[in-house]
């Protein structure tokens, strides 16, 4: 509750307003050429990695399944290019450690047309069949969390879903892929929303869009007007005040409906399912054609990129190839962020491929970083900026001091560490430059390990 927030009418309490830097909000989505080699890590999502079903030396066609879901919380992968499987084994992963991957050498002469998928009519499919079809596309949440979409759309037996919330906030600075998808692929998005509504049984869908992209809402409304009344129910596009982290599902639901999801609960406990616009637009494209997810829209941007833009990138394209194409002189690039600059992960190597959950590649130069992370770390002066910006209503100042003293149990029990979703607001505002989020991540990991140890013993 800041002095002016009374009069401004903000959607959810606290949060921050980082500079938006949406360099690519007006450029059309372009296609990236196919790289000579793609690297498909098996684990690209939350849950169990799938099992490879191709052998080294086997020829694969673009869109052909190359890995099979091994568990309910697992999705298949499809070959992003036509070519030959060159290698199955460890390759650099985005988190640092090498991960099990399938490397495919692209066939230089192939047209790279997706010939595998068979068009099909899903207009009368049951919810069960739709979920199976979604599972077969290998779709995961394209917003960044990479949670398998079929699992997200599966409504537990005791619950009833009445509303599908479509997340078009894109509150991260720099990223514009969802924005461009909403503007250019509004028809696919509406199609995808209809599938998701049928899969969940929702009677209405509300697309929440931050008010810095009114053109996206206009495009969706125009697509809806072209479509006329829908048998599934009503779809609305709604603008919400721009603020970070609006893209968190809890914050978006707060902004749209004014309810707090109870701590530890999921949106489904209030009868809602939240999905990203990118995910649903991709579903709208893939499902009727019977294809698998082989490419996604990625924002390649940042001060270190000569030709920033939103590109359709084949999954598994190495960062080095992308940056060469978009024009990022390697001498300038100091930090390459996968995802947005607030929650994204710094790439450990340029040989890391683009995976399903990467929505952006932000390249920062030395001088952009110097503004932030190189600054001196002071002791906490208890300025309360973090308390005023934590969207979850925690006390990061206290948590940070406890973390420095390694009082992890106290953090979890009394100061609600488990509620933190690492949005980065506290570290962003901290005038003492204390790496709060990093401390919390470590603390959560240690608490998880402790809990696992207690369970197993």
């Amino acid at each position: 509750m800041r002095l002016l927030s009374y009069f401004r009418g903000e959607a959810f309490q606290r949060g921050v307003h980082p500079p938006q830097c949406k360099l690519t909000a007006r450029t059309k989505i372009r296609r990236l050429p196919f790289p000579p080699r793609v690297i498909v890590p098996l684990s690209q999502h939350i849950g169990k990695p799938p099992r490879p079903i191709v052998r080294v030396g086997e020829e694969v066609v673009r869109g052909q399944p190359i890995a099979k879901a091994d568990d309910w919380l697992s999705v298949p992968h499809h070959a992003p290019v036509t070519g030959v499987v060159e290698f199955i084994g460890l390759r650099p992963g985005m988190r640092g450690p090498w991960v099990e991957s399938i490397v495919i050498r692209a066939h230089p002469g192939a047209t790279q047309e997706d010939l595998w998928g068979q068009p099909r009519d899903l207009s009368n499919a049951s919810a069960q069949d739709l979920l199976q079809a979604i599972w077969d596309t290998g779709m995961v949440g394209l917003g960044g969390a990479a949670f398998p979409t079929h699992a997200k759309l599966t409504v537990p037996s005791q619950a009833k879903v009445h509303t599908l919330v479509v997340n078009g906030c894109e509150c991260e600075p720099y990223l514009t892929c969802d924005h461009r998808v909403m503007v250019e692929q509004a028809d696919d998005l509406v199609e995808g929303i209809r599938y998701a509504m049928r899969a969940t049984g929702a009677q209405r869908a509300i697309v929440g869009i931050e008010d810095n992209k009114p053109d996206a809402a206009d495009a969706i409304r125009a697509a809806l007007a072209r479509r006329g009344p829908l048998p599934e129910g009503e779809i609305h596009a709604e603008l919400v005040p721009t603020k970070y982290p609006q893209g968190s599902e809890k914050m978006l639901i707060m902004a749209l409906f004014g309810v707090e999801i109870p701590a530890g609960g999921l949106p489904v406990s209030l009868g809602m399912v939240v999905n990203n616009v990118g995910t649903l637009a991709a579903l709208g494209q893939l499902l009727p054609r019977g294809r698998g997810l082989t490419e996604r829209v990625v924002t390649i941007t940042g001060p270190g990129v000569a030709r920033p833009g939103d590109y359709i990138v084949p999954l598994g394209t190495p960062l080095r190839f992308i940056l060469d194409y978009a024009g990022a002189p390697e001498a300038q690039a100091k930090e390459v962020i996968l995802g947005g600059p607030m929650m994204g992960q710094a790439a450990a190597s340029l040989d890391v491929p683009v995976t399903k959950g990467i929505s952006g590649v932000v390249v920062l130069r030395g001088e952009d970083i110097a503004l932030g992370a190189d600054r001196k770390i002071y002791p906490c002066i208890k300025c309360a900026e973090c308390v005023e910006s934590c969207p979850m209503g925690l006390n990061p100042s206290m948590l940070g001091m406890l973390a420095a003293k390694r009082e992890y149990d106290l953090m979890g029990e009394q100061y609600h560490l488990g509620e933190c979703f690492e949005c980065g607001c506290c570290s962003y505002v901290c005038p003492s430059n204390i790496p709060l989020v990093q401390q919390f991540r470590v603390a959560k990991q240690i608490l998880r390990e402790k809990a696992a140890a207690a369970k197993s013993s």
Partner: protein
Amino acid sequence: MTIEIRSAPHIKAPRSVPTIMRHVVWSLVPVCAFFVYQYGLSALASLLVVTASCLATERLFVRTGTQAGDIGDFSAVITGLLLALSLPPAFPLWMGAVAGFVAIALGKALTGGIGFNVFNPALVGRAFAQAAFPQAIATYSPSFLPGRFTEFVPSSLAWPLMQPADLMPWLKERQLDALAAATPLAKWKFEGVLAGAEELLTSLSGHMAVGPSPLLILLCGSYLAFRRFLDWRIPAAILGSAGLTAWLLFALSPERFPNPFFMLFSGGLILGAVYMATDMATSPVTPKGMWLYGALIGLLTVIIRYYSGLPEGVMYAILLANAATPLIEKVTQPTPFGKSALARLGQAKRGASYPLHPGYISREEAHAVTPKKRFLRNKPKPEERRKPEKSS
């Protein structure tokens, strides 16, 4: 080529500790300027000497490594300026230097430097001066004396370790009575004379011995609050609670107690509320705690002023509240998102864009019980999942 790995967030708000401190110093410049305009050369020398003493002490302790931070962060400048503003303008300079040393050494360096101090360092220095030099600190020189820019008040220039000369003969020379050298609070407490509004607010009329101008402090403070360099809740709570208590007592017996306006604008209450109580390290971080902390200061100030032997109570009130800060924080932790009473009831806040439940769904269905972990307890068996629906 090398790329660096850093942890998220990769961008940073421009504000840093030196920025905050520098802004507070800039906002104090008009207050100090008017203080010098009121009291002349003595006030200027006092500001300079006390601040220099604070900076030198800070430097000493940073050098020896007993204290975090460094003198580039401007926090010692704030301590020095605030300490000088809270002392009488003609306070002997050597005593000011000692108070500045004690402020940083005992108030700050002892507990580890910036961010670790328990008490506001400027007030620690002032409390020390009050205890060590009771006579000098009770002697206030009148404002707007003719010739204040060309000569020092004699007490300023006392030799080190010497008591200052008595001001009475010097005042008599200028045809001023002894009352001119007492603050409005002391005059009310010991003589029963109540100062008027215009004297308190600007001190432009007559030779009143008031401190830095409250109006100017409020103005500079509201700039800081607007830019969010200090939290508006603390001054609001202090002034509200002090005003309310004073008004209550005034209503009970108007002849015994002064009016609430006099209470708020006399002495150091405004300076304390805006600049001293809002010291970040010694005030609570929780919003509710700030209200409680401010209310405590206001209440204690009025009680000390009315019932103790001292004319002024702001300093002790703030120091006591500083001591209570960790406890206040502990009992006023913020409620996390999703744990409020509204969230437990599943109620919506007013003013939402959409009703939670579409009209055509009955409430019973919408409130169907759901398990917490839906993917563990409710996971369908693989063979069930693969089976096509028989009904269709």
